[in-house]
């Protein structure tokens, strides 16, 4: 990273441990040839000084702040947007034939007679502290239920990611290596088909094959507290396989496109024309540039896992967040639905943010937006 004319002051960046040429300035602070004058120039607010001293850390902090802000906006949408929709919780909850008195009672019971802004603030205050109120249907604490199920869901998603990520990257590289030849075409057709398969179809197909026909896997994939680790692993084998198949195709196609994009660039062609060996081209020229898009692809697809988990848990009767949410939606248990929705959205936003930050870390060019 020692390229480029250094006109501004050379600053050591703590977070990444590398020096950044500060010729093009992202913060709008003009780069001065004289370091002393430059530092004197940015003496304004603390934030501006910070942006100048630690541009990378500032950029990451900015993304973090943006994500937190986004999460608050989403919470407002999940809570407030629903209030704005036509229909009334109490009437939909009780059904059309409810008497006005019963509706009135349940409104009071659930605290719906208070104005929505007040309810939103108390809900948000609780949510920040990890308290999501009590379920309307079972009168149990929502947080307690979520605490148990979130762990199960993460367990499932973790193993799905553990298997699918190396597999997808490997297959993607294979497809690039054999571009437009038979292996690539086979991979292309199969992945196109896999993208079009609904999650539940893959799930039931696997159940039919491995649990019913051959009897090598267990169904339903119930897990409980007293299970040992290996028992748990064998219980989640089929759900994990389903999730892997669901994510794999997307991830692989995107990896292939990302690597292909790098491989067809001018500098790789130059390296080829210089007569460098294939391995050297890939290791020294292509790989460093392909890391950023591939990391991005992986993070985006892990975010996609969040959604896949919902359907797969319902298929396999797995006690996780997704099933909790779907059950709550069918009985219109709003505190549970809102809590689950917020948590799923939080994971989604967090993973997207991680993709963003990792891409910035891996690709210095992104640190200087136009």
């Amino acid at each position, binding site marked *: 990273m020692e390229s480029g004319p250094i006109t501004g002051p050379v600053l050591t960046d703590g977070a990444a441990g590398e020096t950044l040429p500060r010729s093009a300035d992202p913060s709008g602070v003009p780069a001065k040839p004289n370091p002393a004058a430059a530092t004197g120039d940015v003496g304004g607010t603390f934030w501006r000084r910070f942006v100048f001293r630690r541009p990378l850390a500032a950029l990451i902090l900015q993304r973090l702040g943006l994500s937190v802000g986004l999460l608050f906006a*989403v919470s407002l949408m999940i809570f407030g947007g629903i209030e704005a929709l036509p229909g009334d919780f109490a009437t939909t909850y009780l059904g059309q034939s409810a008497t006005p008195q019963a509706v009135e009672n349940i409104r009071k019971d659930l605290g719906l007679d208070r104005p929505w802004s007040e309810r939103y603030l108390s809900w948000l205050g609780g949510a920040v502290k990890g308290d999501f109120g009590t379920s309307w249907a079972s009168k149990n604490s929502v947080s307690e239920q979520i605490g148990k199920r979130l762990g199960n869901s993460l367990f499932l998603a973790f193993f799905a990611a553990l298997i699918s990520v190396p597999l997808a990257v490997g297959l993607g590289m294979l497809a690039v290596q054999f571009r437009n030849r038979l292996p690539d075409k086979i991979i292309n057709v199969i992945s*196109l*088909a896999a993208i079009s398969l*609904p999650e539940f*179809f893959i799930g039931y197909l696997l159940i039919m094959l491995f649990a019913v026909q051959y009897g090598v896997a267990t169904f339903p994939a119930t897990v409980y507290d007293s299970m040992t680790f290996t028992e748990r692993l064998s219980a989640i084998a089929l759900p994990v396989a389903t999730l892997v198949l669901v994510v794999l195709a997307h991830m692989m196609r995107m990896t292939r496109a990302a690597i*292909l994009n790098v491989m067809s660039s001018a500098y790789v062609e130059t390296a080829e024309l210089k007569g460098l060996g294939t391995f050297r081209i890939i290791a020294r020229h292509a790989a460093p540039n392909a890391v950023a898009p591939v990391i991005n692809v992986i993070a985006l697809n892990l975010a996609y896992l969040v959604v896949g988990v919902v359907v797969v848990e319902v298929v396999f009767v797995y006690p996780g967040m997704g099933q909790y949410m779907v059950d709550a939606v069918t009985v219109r248990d709003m505190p549970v639905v809102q809590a689950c929705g917020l948590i799923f*959205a939080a994971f989604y936003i967090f993973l997207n943010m991680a993709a963003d930050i990792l891409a910035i870390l891996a690709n210095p060019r992104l640190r200087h937006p136009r």
Partner: protein
Amino acid sequence: MNLRSIPISAWIGIIGIALALLCAIFAPFIAPFGERDVVGEIWMPAGGDFLLGTDNLGRDLLSRLIYGARTTIFVALTATVLSFALGMILSFTAAVTGGFVDQLFSRFNDLMMAVPTLIFALVVLAVLPQHLWILILVMAVLDSTRVFRIGRAVALDVAVMEFVEAARLRGEGSLWIIFREILPNTLSPLLAEFGLRFAFSILFLSTLSFLGLGIQPPAADWGGMVKDNKDGIIFGISAALVPGAAIATLAISVNLVVDWLMKRTSSLKGGRGDA
């Protein structure tokens, strides 16, 4: 363009779509039994009177599959058309107007896209009453966020071209610029996107129905049929796999055609076809 230039994969896709459309349009004439008639025992095996067997209530699976094509395709297609109308009008307005309107629409769109579609749909459907038009509307609005993003990107490319500027200088209004200048020039990438969104719509509707939040029984629909018959799986009865395979076939068919359309547009523009 001649018929010979269409690759085999695209032909397979076209045939698949045509078959599904035929089933959907002529359902009452093709189906051997009624959509809701109980005609036999529960979960009878395939063969004999019932080509694909019967379902969990003893209804003919093939007939329900054919009627299901009608519901599934109708709802998915309506939702996609609506989402395109909505997404394209908003995105083109944003691209042509620019400034504050563009910022407002784009930021709101980002906010909508910050929640996964399925999760968003679950939250919204938990509150709204169960009607078909509400389901279609929810699907359309959620899908239009994706259309908006593509539409805005494509329209921005075209909006800075000389002929648009010429139209502006001629004194044409925004509506003229949107419909007569930008729309014809963005149609071809948007057509491929339409196919992609349609395939996604089919899968999304099926998923919602499978979760019990989409089309309500007794109407036949492919996702719902999987849900109805899922308990049979554990006894080795494959009735749930048949509608699942139908969904997969239709989605694959649409994707094959889209794949070909995309390759065609990218090669027309002189882009590298292999990326």
